[in-house]
């Protein structure tokens, strides 16, 4: 088996294994518009990569995968650049704010416990809601009954906000404030939870911005691309935790995977995509819950990671 030595991680890895791992996560990324850090970081730690290096190198890898995925989705007309940029601006502001919030929370003590519980509950709620909603939608499609859409309180409120503008790719008209505010909200949450935010951003775009699922995937990837460029440079600069060799093997797999993922995504209907993503979110929730409930093998761990 071909092994390569990773100078920053300080360990060697099996090239084929890491390439395959990259490919798998790339496919998920291309289908659902998530970064895949939830899956990649723990797997990398499992094969002997220090947690801090695993998380940082993964964001370097996501830069490659989301470039590939964004391009593939762009060609299918699935990237709403206007929306993406507004969400990004909000996300950067939120991320900066979130880092401060977490400092305050940590000082109050027991913050990690609250964060973990909130994350599990949120994944559980979002996953279940998405699952049930898309299941109902899929059933409706089989027996088409065109129910007239009621204007909810939420829609009325959103309609009253100033600076309404058209988002052509998404086919919606919204206030500029909406993506800015929601982007900030996701940015804060992502910083507090210590995750990339794809799992939070995608449902927010689907349910709160009411964007079509396919455009959500492409736009989410576009947004993740810039977030991860920022993270990669910051981690390289301040913590020296990006292992370029590791990222390179991963991204050779994931950029390829993202292309296939985008093709798979194109073949699926919006509601099918939603129900699959909902299942994935629920699986991740169960995994985190099990980590919390099962007795660890070793009672000590290296610092860093998700």
């Amino acid at each position, binding site marked *: 088996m071909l092994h390569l*030595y990773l100078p920053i991680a300080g360990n060697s890895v099996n090239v084929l294994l890491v390439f395959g791992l990259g490919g798998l996560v790339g496919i998920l990324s291309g289908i659902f518009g998530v970064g895949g850090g939830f899956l990649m970081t723990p797997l990398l730690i499992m094969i002997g990569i220090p947690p801090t290096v695993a998380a940082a190198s993964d964001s370097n890898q996501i830069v490659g995968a989301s470039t590939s995925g964004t391009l593939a989705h762009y060609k299918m007309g699935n990237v709403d650049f206007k929306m993406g940029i507004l969400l990004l601006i909000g996300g950067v502001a939120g991320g900066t704010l979130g880092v401060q919030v977490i400092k305050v929370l940590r000082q109050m003590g027991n913050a990690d416990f609250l964060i973990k519980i909130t994350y599990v509950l949120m994944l559980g709620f979002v996953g279940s809601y998405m699952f049930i909603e898309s299941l109902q939608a899929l059933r409706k499609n089989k027996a088409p009954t065109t129910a007239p859409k009621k204007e909810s309180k939420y829609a009325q409120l959103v309609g009253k906000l100033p600076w309404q503008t058209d988002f052509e790719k998404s086919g919606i008209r919204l206030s500029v404030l909406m993506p800015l505010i929601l982007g900030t909200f996701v940015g804060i949450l992502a910083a507090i939870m210590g995750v990339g935010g794809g799992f939070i951003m995608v449902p927010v775009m689907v349910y709160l911005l009411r964007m079509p699922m396919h455009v959500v995937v492409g736009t989410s990837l576009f947004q993740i691309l810039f977030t991860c460029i920022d993270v990669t440079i910051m981690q390289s600069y301040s913590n020296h935790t990006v292992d370029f060799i590791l990222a390179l093997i991963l991204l050779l797999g994931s950029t390829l995977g993202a292309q296939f993922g985008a093709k798979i995504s194109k073949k699926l209907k919006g509601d099918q995509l939603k129900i699959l993503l909902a299942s994935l979110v629920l699986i991740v929730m169960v995994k985190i819950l099990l980590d919390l409930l099962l007795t660890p093998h070793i009672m000590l761990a290296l610092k860093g990671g998700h």
Partner: protein
Amino acid sequence: MIKNKIWMSVIILTMYFICLPKSACSTVSVKVKHEPNLIAISAFFNGTQLTVSGKIAAENEVAIIVKGTQEELTLKKKGKALGLLWMNMGDVHFKKVPNLYILYSSKGMMELAASDAIASEQLGIGFESLKKEMEIEAPQAKRNYLAQEFLKLKKNQGLYAFHPGEISFGQKSGTDKSFKAAVWIPPRIPTGEYQVQVMEIHNGMIVGNSIDQLKVEEQGIPAMISSLAFNHSLFYGFLAVLIAVAAGLLMDFFFGTGKGGGAH
């Protein structure tokens, strides 16, 4: 003559006190050779073998320790929050722990000395002696437990290991016999200076000793990347991003649909 006798007793007494701590009086230097003297970590490094060989008295046993520098380490401690959920519950600081501890011996610990504790006491080798040496910032009652978990973590990483009975002996020649061991150096070994110590053991006592140096350093591509990452970190970050974007563009070019624009 009397003067000479006094001098002799002084020398003998001094020798006795110098040698006392490890009860390793009259240790002789063991003839040892280890290969290589320098471990080079290159692009395809995946751990390596260190061959340690030499000669000892025919009736004796031998132990080999490859040991790294002592370091301080802060780890996360897991505990139950609200008596239900396993979480990281604060940090534990460990001091005086070697970054590598690989022990090979010609026989099991019990056969070298009467027990692990005695081996630790008389020979100063084995995990029990490591546990004694390390300092843990924790209440006394929890120290043994934390030391145990620490050893488990290090063994899991392959950085601490004990291989009893994995030193082979050759033919006797006169009163001597040769020994040889293939010491496995794990891929996770940090760069730096290491000590290769060989101990000749007779009835649970060290009768011969030899300490040699071993150097581990990165060469070629790993050395280049490390230097870039630490000395030109901003440039390294930009380069990493640039190459990732380029890989994404290339993959799209080769495997993408190739159609521009259009709705789905």
